């Protein structure tokens, strides 16, 4: 049922027009302005050239920020997948009422403000926080561990905050798998692990790829969580852009690193997509 451009009616176009107009006005136009701005050679304007890009790509500090941001996304995505898949699996295997409860817990983070959630993590991870208090009460540590303002802290907090983005697509993918397939596999002599590896996992790949994409994109651009949990010592791209634009008023450089960031993210996203296509797991018809 592949739709072609021919199938689009004028009604479809008219119905889509308001959103399209908004999209052009508030997304495409600023993006074009951003692109133009990034080619200005100095903040006062005037000359155009590639100097901002040359500055960024020639600067080890800037490249380091970009690299650590992309790497942060990978770590968060991996952790979210590792923790999220079992939750989605549990949801799939549970009776009706339990599914509702699990779904509520999965969606709960989305119902609170990201600022509130992030401050909760500040309280949990702080020197006198819940984790340190529990560990010292158990006698496992003498002095409080440094959890807040560490990359590990950022990864854990981001993983929790982005969990619904991973779990929901995987639940959708798992629910589309015919339960008879697992039965067929086990009758043919496969144990639970083989059934999971050979049947369930490949068939849930579309959900995994979608979940990873969403989580990755959300994690690397999560300005608030990165800044509050990471503190001043760790610099990631969103904060870097903010500093250049707001504090240093260097708009052309801020624009240039935004564009570089955008391209870098697109590259990572295409790699994800290609991986998804390479694996032969497709959702059931």
């Amino acid at each position: 049922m592949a739709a072609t451009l021919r199938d689009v009616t004028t009604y479809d176009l008219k119905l889509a027009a308001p959103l399209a107009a908004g999209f052009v006005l508030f997304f495409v136009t600023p993006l074009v302005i951003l692109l133009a701005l990034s080619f200005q050679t100095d903040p006062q304007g005037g000359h155009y050239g590639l100097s901002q890009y040359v500055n960024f790509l020639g600067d080890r500090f800037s490249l380091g920020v970009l690299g650590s941001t992309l790497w942060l996304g990978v770590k968060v995505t991996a952790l979210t997948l590792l923790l999220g898949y079992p939750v989605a699996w549990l949801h799939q295997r549970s009776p009706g009422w339990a599914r509702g409860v699990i779904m509520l817990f999965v969606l709960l983070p989305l119902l609170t403000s990201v600022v509130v959630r992030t401050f909760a993590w500040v309280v949990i991870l702080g020197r006198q926080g819940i984790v340190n208090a529990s560990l010292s009460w158990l006698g496992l540590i003498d002095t409080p561990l440094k959890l807040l303002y560490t990359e590990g802290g950022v990864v854990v907090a981001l993983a929790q905050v982005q969990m619904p983005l991973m779990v929901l697509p995987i639940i959708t993918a798992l629910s589309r798998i015919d339960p008879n397939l697992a039965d067929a596999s086990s009758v043919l002599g496969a144990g639970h692990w083989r059934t999971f590896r050979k049947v369930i996992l490949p068939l849930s790949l579309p959900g995994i790829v979608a979940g990873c994409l969403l989580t990755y994109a959300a994690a690397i651009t999560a300005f608030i969580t990165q800044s509050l949990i990471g503190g001043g010592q760790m610099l990631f791209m969103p904060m870097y852009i903010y500093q250049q634009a707001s504090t240093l008023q260097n708009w052309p450089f801020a624009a240039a690193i935004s564009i570089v960031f955008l391209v870098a993210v697109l590259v990572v996203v295409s790699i994800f997509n290609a991986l998804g296509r390479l694996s032969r797991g497709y959702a059931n018809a």
Partner: protein
Amino acid sequence: MVSASRNGPASQRGQTLLLDGITQRYGTSLAVNEVTLDIRGGELVALLGPSGCGKTTLLRIIAGFLAQTKGHVMIGGQSVDGLPPNRRSVGIVFQNYALFPHMTVAENVAYGLDARGVDRATQRSEAQRMLDMVKLGHLGERTPRQLSGGQQQRVALARALAVNPSILLLDEPFAALDKNLRLDMQIEVKRIQRLSGITTILVTHDQEEALSMADRVAVLSQGRLEQFSPPTEIYDAPDSLFVNTFVGSANLLGGVLVDCDRTAGRVRLDAGGMVETRAPKGDLRPGARVTVCLRPEHLSVDPAATDVDTLNGVVEMGLPLGATVVHEIRIGDGSAVKVSEPRIQRAELLAPGTPVRLAPVAPRLASVFAAA
């Protein structure tokens, strides 16, 4: 197990399957109630019944997807109670085939061999051999979705048989096929089952399918085993009113048992007339209220004569159905009776309104049960 399959399935004799007092309880309801079936090696047994009769539950218990509340499952004399499905040596063909959509046809067929640690080369040759057996040897590299329903079913059958299971379970395997293809596949499955000699359980709600394919049919109703007999016996000598009405069609006539012995009985019908019946089922004594079951082909219509002490009626409608003619007759107590006769014997339809006399074509065809 693998070495046995290399010898070819024809050399293998089917394993026996014993279901011993199987009971399955869901909360307070009994899905299966004390069902005992002793199935011979190489036999094809159909589990027949309306939906909710417990036949699918029984299948899931044999496969090991469900642990029965009570009773034992023995395959080849060995108890398999407590064994998980992957260690029971059964094969299943599901109603929707349940082929793995992300694997090729050949990979699907080789899946069970792979799970048993068979080396790649043997997997390939065995899968090819099984596909050749179901006449799909040339389609190994396709994906299941590129195949028609009938082809997918053959692949499912090849996949189930590739691991040389002791028992083959077929779960409503023909329900998704259209009518012409269904008959072809029924013949094909029967052929392969004969060829491999594998003990086979066919779950179905389709009585024609059960009667035509099975060596013996187990009729189930509300979790209970109603009758376990060869198809002709199920049809000709039903053990219960349920079996009589579920398998084939039956005219139910009220009456009073006049006398009976071990081989026959006589019933005076409420609508008039006396019929000679088979021996009544259950503990019935003369004078008891009974229900007489007469199949449409057990009766003939005689327009010439009516009498006071015969089963009389009036023709409501006549339908020519190819080889047979069916008349619907309104009888004395107001109920309708269907009569089916060969066209050779009755070329002309009887006009509506014709008064007729109904008589059994032979004595002792009717079954008698206690009145419901």
